[in-house]
């Protein structure tokens, strides 16, 4: 499979499953009132974060959005640190000062996620600029949604990435909705990737439910970037199973639409594939699943048992 060994394939699978089960569990806890604030969940979109991040080295970077849990797990932030952050505990990756929408861990190559739609893209350019000037061969991936592509930040950033030939890959997670608004209401194009032509860079549309396709296309784009050939815009068609945030019942979309996409579930599809390739069987699958569940419970227990932040840290970290 595209030069992917068994172990790597199983890792992709496990990561997708980790994201799915983590998000499901977090949602339960949220509904029980154990997690403060709001949540933007990633179920259904796992193949993108996992397929893209699998191509990256630890010292490559990503920028993320208000919906960062999947990216965080895929880029390798320990689940403990993510969970603790969601619970508002001082052991969280941002010392409880970031929260669900700002998950990040510099040490594994994820900037604090940026919750202003579109605003992470220009910043990703800057990370890429540093790599380029220092000739480090690192790359940066900027994740953002379909909604972000109607924002001025997207436009200015893609143009600048193009003219400076930066080592950056722009990954658009097109889940067809920006909050409650369907993409057809706010854009006349069918494919967002077509916007790449406005900047003179390649644009590719792919099936964001197929982790191997994501991996393949990301590999090409990351290589281009690493080789100094400039940015690529990758549009991944996908779907979020959850509401936009917290208890959004998502009444603005049809059951049929949701069911259609669930019938193309990235984890189910990939599992089937792994079964066909004899890389996975029921037994092994169960084992992976229970391992993932254990890890999640461990992370959540860690979060629950962690202390609240001492008040005085609220006044720290404003200035370096």
């Amino acid at each position, binding site marked *: 499979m595209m030069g992917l060994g068994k172990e790597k394939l199983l890792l992709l699978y496990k990561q997708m499953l980790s994201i799915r089960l983590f998000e499901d569990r977090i949602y339960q806890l949220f509904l029980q009132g154990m997690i*403060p*604030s709001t949540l933007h969940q990633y179920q259904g979109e796992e193949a993108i974060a996992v397929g893209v991040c699998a191509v990256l080295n630890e010292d490559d970077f990503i920028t993320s959005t208000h919906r960062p849990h999947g990216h965080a797990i895929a880029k390798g932030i320990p689940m403990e640190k993510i969970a603790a952050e969601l619970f508002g505990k001082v052991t969280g990756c941002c010392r409880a000062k970031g*929260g669900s929408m*700002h998950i990040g861990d510099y040490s594994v190559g994820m900037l604090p996620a*940026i919750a*202003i739609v579109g605003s992470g893209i220009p910043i990703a350019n800057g990370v890429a600029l540093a790599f380029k000037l220092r000739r480090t061969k690192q790359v940066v991936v900027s994740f953002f949604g379909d909604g972000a592509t109607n924002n001025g930040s997207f436009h200015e950033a893609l143009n600048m990435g193009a003219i400076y030939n930066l080592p950056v890959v722009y990954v658009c997670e097109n889940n067809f909705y920006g909050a409650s608004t369907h993409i057809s209401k706010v854009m006349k194009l069918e494919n967002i990737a077509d916007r790449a032509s406005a900047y003179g860079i390649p644009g590719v549309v792919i099936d964001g439910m197929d982790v191997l396709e994501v991996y393949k296309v990301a590999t090409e784009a990351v290589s281009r970037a690493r080789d100094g050939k400039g940015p690529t815009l990758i549009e991944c068609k996908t779907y979020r199973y959850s509401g936009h945030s917290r208890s959004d019942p998502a009444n603005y979309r049809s059951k049929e639409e949701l069911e259609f996409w669930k019938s193309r579930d990235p984890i189910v599809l990939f599992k089937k594939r792994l079964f066909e390739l004899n890389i996975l069987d029921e037994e092994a699958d169960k084992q992976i699943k229970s391992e993932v569940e254990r890890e999640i419970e461990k992370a959540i227990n860690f979060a629950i048992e962690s202390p609240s932040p001492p008040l005085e840290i609220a006044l720290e970290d404003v200035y370096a």
Partner: protein
Amino acid sequence: MHKLTMAEAIREALREEMRRDPNVILIGEDIGIPGGWGGPFTVTQGLAEEFGNERVIDTPISETGIVGIAIGAAIMGLRPVAEVQYCDFLFCAMDQIANQAAKLRYMSGGQIKIPLVLRAPTGATGRGAQHAQSLEGLFTSIPGLKVVAPSTPYDAKGLLKSSIRDDNPVLFFEHKLLYGSKGARKERGGVELFGEVPEEDYAIPLGVADIKKKGKDITVVAKLLMLHRALEAAEELEKDGISVEVIDPRTLIPLDKETIIKSVKKTNRILIVDECPKTGGWAAEISSTVVEEAMDYLDAPIKRLCTYDVPIPFSPVLENYVIPTKERIIQTIREMLG
């Protein structure tokens, strides 16, 4: 009279103004989607059904585009009520707000008017630094804008009507914890605020403060959520025989200085309580105004009790720590009196 939440009162103002004047239109993200929420805090629910999607216009996530289109429409005589989902996103449209809306009339030598309202939910609500700012103070420093910040359903409805009827760009700040949004959009930690609101038409003029509680020992000026905390503090202090006068300016630009000055001349002490950060914040303007106009009446230095000068932290305990609480208000007043 009926009892409404703030969200309902604002919706009622929008509905009545839209019925009264066909020039009133709404522009914003997720405001008129069937099956949607009516904006992030339910305010516009049902309005697209009544007025259609020609007058309740859903937009892309393009704050610059939103404010820009509203300005152009306003210049041509429509009365757009545009909105951002969180006031933090006003910064995404800052050029349109501060360089265009605030200045075009002046630059034109008075040829054009910009009857535009821009609604913006303000305040910290446990979401972290980018959905938490209190920015109403910052916008008072840009000549050409009016700034409104209502604290009760009654005030919200009456002031929104005046804002819509006003011929200038008005930034209308609504505190997320005061909305009383219900169901799925309910805010954790929200203040349960039901207020009597007349069903007949009324409007509250911009630039008239409201003394929300009479008192004689000290004047407290506060707006939005802080007003409610100040009132709670005042109630508690009353038990100890301390009489606090609590003034709600309601509109920040134009500001009803007279009511504040008059109160200070009576109580001889003033505390400003504010959710904006202290340095360079709104409280400074009130303080300086009082010094300029009533310094000789002061028996104690003016105090500003404001959010600490930090971005708003995520954790609820930290958030609670950085924003003035009832307890800190009480403590500060006690210190000032004694």
